[in-house]
């Protein structure tokens, strides 16, 4: 079938149907694994035609061509917008449709002293970038919305919705057979024509035993992750790099394994190629949605590290010892978290924890469905073992006053009368955001783990641990004032050794989600420069209209910082040294000696 399609497309190309393509062909750059930098090869032109002309070649409905003209609409608006900007700054770009030219390496590298190399983007360039973000793209008001509401809000969009094409970043998951499985926005079942096109593009390369990785257009980056029987695709206007987007696709893929295991996944599609996986994944969309959202507002995914909860070493250690003392016999990990931060973890001696697994667990337990109950869920930790399920006992701990007649049973005594279902005893019980997660390979271990939780909860209350934790919660967040450095606005410190990081409180301007997203984007940009550059790059900075952001990388740490844009980079650099010294002196940042058994 794909052979046929290919021929058909080639024929069209000959017939000259390729002109007037919706996407800006002149700027299409294809990367595929076989042929790393084949710019505008004939094949890529053909693929672009596949996108554009598919309506005439196969059973793809008209709604699809509507979208493409919509995309073209945005495209043109962007180009117009851009050329306006370029006219005012430099005319160099007017003929080019590449909006983000200013981020090409050539413009940015300038050698500095001591083998450190810095990047800078001058004011004008960042201006361009910001204006582009502000002008055309869907205005987000989603930061305070629950995933459930988000799905309600965007879940009914389809290719013809004018808003649908404006979303800054789309994620699609389809089966190798082209069946829709997940879309971040819109109703998957209404997107089958689009999924068909994606599948056609992918199988086009498959014929030559090649794999498509990324399509760059003047406005969009389209990244593919092929994990047969699943294809994952990201369509982004966020200026994140191919590697960064690919990592996000890897997270989504692992979220699917988290729910199904690789064994089930393979078996399902082995038995029935056309299986509709949405049946099996229903209920997990919100986890995928949450991940998709967090990619832009949570540094964990950029840093590939675990967010740690800052507490005194003694307290952290005594918590770890208590957990270890009362731990159930047969568990893999015992994890104590406060919201999205890790307080401590206990684990078998030889077993390492992978940040990705922890991220998926934390993403799951932050769902409201885990509040007020004890949960027992089969989950798969892909980095630990993608083939099998573990059973996760999850319970948020309660803070309660121990009565004199110590009753290990904290249940409320109520009667069935409707007037007052809650007894006075329960008013002393206070819910906390401290969550205990125990992972067991035994699906019958629930009551054993539940009893352990009771003991742990009681011993924590006896030792005032929950009370102490709730007391220090304000102090647990790193305050920028602690550094005593003027003009410093934000810091992230990651330990490469422990794969953990800590971040300062989001003070103005970063209490605004849009500003924080912008800050993360600049960090992402710096990260891509440091890690994407061949030579051993240690330091780079970016000066923008809103802030001066810097990244300094050494063997054992990565330090991201943001300063007022009016400060010189030399001063900022010296401040970085001070900040790093400060961090080196702290002993309460990370879990350095986790309890092993």
């Amino acid at each position, binding site marked *: 079938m794909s052979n046929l399609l290919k021929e058909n497309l080639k024929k069209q190309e000959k017939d000259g149907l390729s002109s007037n393509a919706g996407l800006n062909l002149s700027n299409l750059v294809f990367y595929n694994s076989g042929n790393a930098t084949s710019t505008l090869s004939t094949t890529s032109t053909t693929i672009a035609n596949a996108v554009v002309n598919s309506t005439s070649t196969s059973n793809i409905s008209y709604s699809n061509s509507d979208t493409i003209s919509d995309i073209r609409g945005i495209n043109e608006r962007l180009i117009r917008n851009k050329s306006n900007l370029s006219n005012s700054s430099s005319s160099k770009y007017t003929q080019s449709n590449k909006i983000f030219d200013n981020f090409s390496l050539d413009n940015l590298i300038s050698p500095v002293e001591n083998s450190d190399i810095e990047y800078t983007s001058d004011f004008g360039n960042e201006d361009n970038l910001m204006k582009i973000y502000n002008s055309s793209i869907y205005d987000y008001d989603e930061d305070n919305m629950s995933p459930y509401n988000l799905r309600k809000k965007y879940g009914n969009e389809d290719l013809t919705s004018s808003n649908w094409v404006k979303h800054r970043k789309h994620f699609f998951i389809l089966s190798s057979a082209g069946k829709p499985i997940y879309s971040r926005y819109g109703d998957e079942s209404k997107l089958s024509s689009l999924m068909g096109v994606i599948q056609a593009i992918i199988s086009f390369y498959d014929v030559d035993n090649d794999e498509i990785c990324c399509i760059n257009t003047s406005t969009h980056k389209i990244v593919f992750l092929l994990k047969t029987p699943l294809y994952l695709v990201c369509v982004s206007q966020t200026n994140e790099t191919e590697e960064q987007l690919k990592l996000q696709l890897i997270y989504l893929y692992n979220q699917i394994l988290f729910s199904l295991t690789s064994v089930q996944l393979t078996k399902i599609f082995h038995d029935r190629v056309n299986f509709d996986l949405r049946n099996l994944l229903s209920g997990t969309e919100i986890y995928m949605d949450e991940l998709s959202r967090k990619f832009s507002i949570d540094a964990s995914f950029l840093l590939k590290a675990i967010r740690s909860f800052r507490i005194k070493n003694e307290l952290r250690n005594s918590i770890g010892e208590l957990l270890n003392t009362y731990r159930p016999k047969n568990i893999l990990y015992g994890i104590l978290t406060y919201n999205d931060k890790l307080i401590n973890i206990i684990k078998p001696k030889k077993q390492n924890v992978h940040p990705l697994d922890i991220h998926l667990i934390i993403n799951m337990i932050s769902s409201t*469905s885990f509040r007020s109950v004890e949960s027992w869920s*089969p989950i798969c930790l892909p980095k630990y*073992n993608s083939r099998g399920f573990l059973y*996760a006992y999850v319970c948020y701990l309660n803070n309660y006053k121990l009565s004199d007649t110590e009753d290990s049973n904290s249940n409320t005594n109520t*009667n069935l009368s409707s007037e007052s*279902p809650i007894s006075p005893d329960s008013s002393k019980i206070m819910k906390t955001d401290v969550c205990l997660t125990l992972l067991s390979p035994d699906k019958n271990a629930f009551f054993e783990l539940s009893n352990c939780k009771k003991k742990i909860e009681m011993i924590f209350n006896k030792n005032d641990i929950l009370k102490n934790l709730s007391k220090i919660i304000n102090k647990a967040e790193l305050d920028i004032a602690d550094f005593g450095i003027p003009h410093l606005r934000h810091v992230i410190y990651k330990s490469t050794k422990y794969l953990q990081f800590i971040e300062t409180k989001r003070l103005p301007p970063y209490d605004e989600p849009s500003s924080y997203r912008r800050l993360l984007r600049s960090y992402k940009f710096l990260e891509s420069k440091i890690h994407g550059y061949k030579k051993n790059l240690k330091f780079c900075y970016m000066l923008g209209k809103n802030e001066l952001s810097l990244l300094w990388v050494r063997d054992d740490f990565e330090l991201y910082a943001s300063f007022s844009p009016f400060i010189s980079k030399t001063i900022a650099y010296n401040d970085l040294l001070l900040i790093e010294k400060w961090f080196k002196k702290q002993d309460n940042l990370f879990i350095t000696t986790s309890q092993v058994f």
Partner: protein
Amino acid sequence: MNFSGRNDAASANMKPIQVKLVLLGESAVGKSSIVLRFVNNEYQDNKEPTIGAAFLTQRCKLDDRIIKFEIWDTAGQERFHSLAPMYYRNAQAAVIVYDITKPASLEKAKTWVKELQRQANPNIVIALVGNKIDLANNRSVPYEEAEAYANENGLLFFEASAKTGTNIIEVFTELAKKIPYEQILANNKTLNSRTNGQGDNGRVNLNESENNNQDGGQCNC
């Protein structure tokens, strides 16, 4: 029957009778909302879906007995179906929920009834609950239809709303009244003598479930 008894000194000294109860039904019909209304008297719009199963307990006083409900709230999704027997196998009571605005959810409820009749404890007391009557304007399952089905199959029947609290306590009350306690106590006695008086009489025994479930392979630790 007197249902309003407070938790006085006499009853506090009594050992509660444990009643294992399981909630079943299609996802999003309101199972979790019903339990949370019953146990904590709380309700949340836009409750996020349960993953796996959730366990809750609630003590109640019925006449001169103290009953401790041990409740398994299961996730309705397809992929957890194979785990369901683990939760209903030893249950003495089941609440099967459908959504009165979704006819398909009643059909799903009926398949649960059949599965329980085939595979659960033969003395299990089942209540069929049509949830979301606060949305009666959008009703698409007639009261009479569901009631007739319930009568045919010997189920308790209620329409209720977790959102407003209507009929929620009644569901659990009527279930509690129909449980054959003498039998449970007798069972517990034999169980106690066998297991040397373990404290967890009559709870959902996860340990009895078979080990050949198709879980996609056990992990290797």
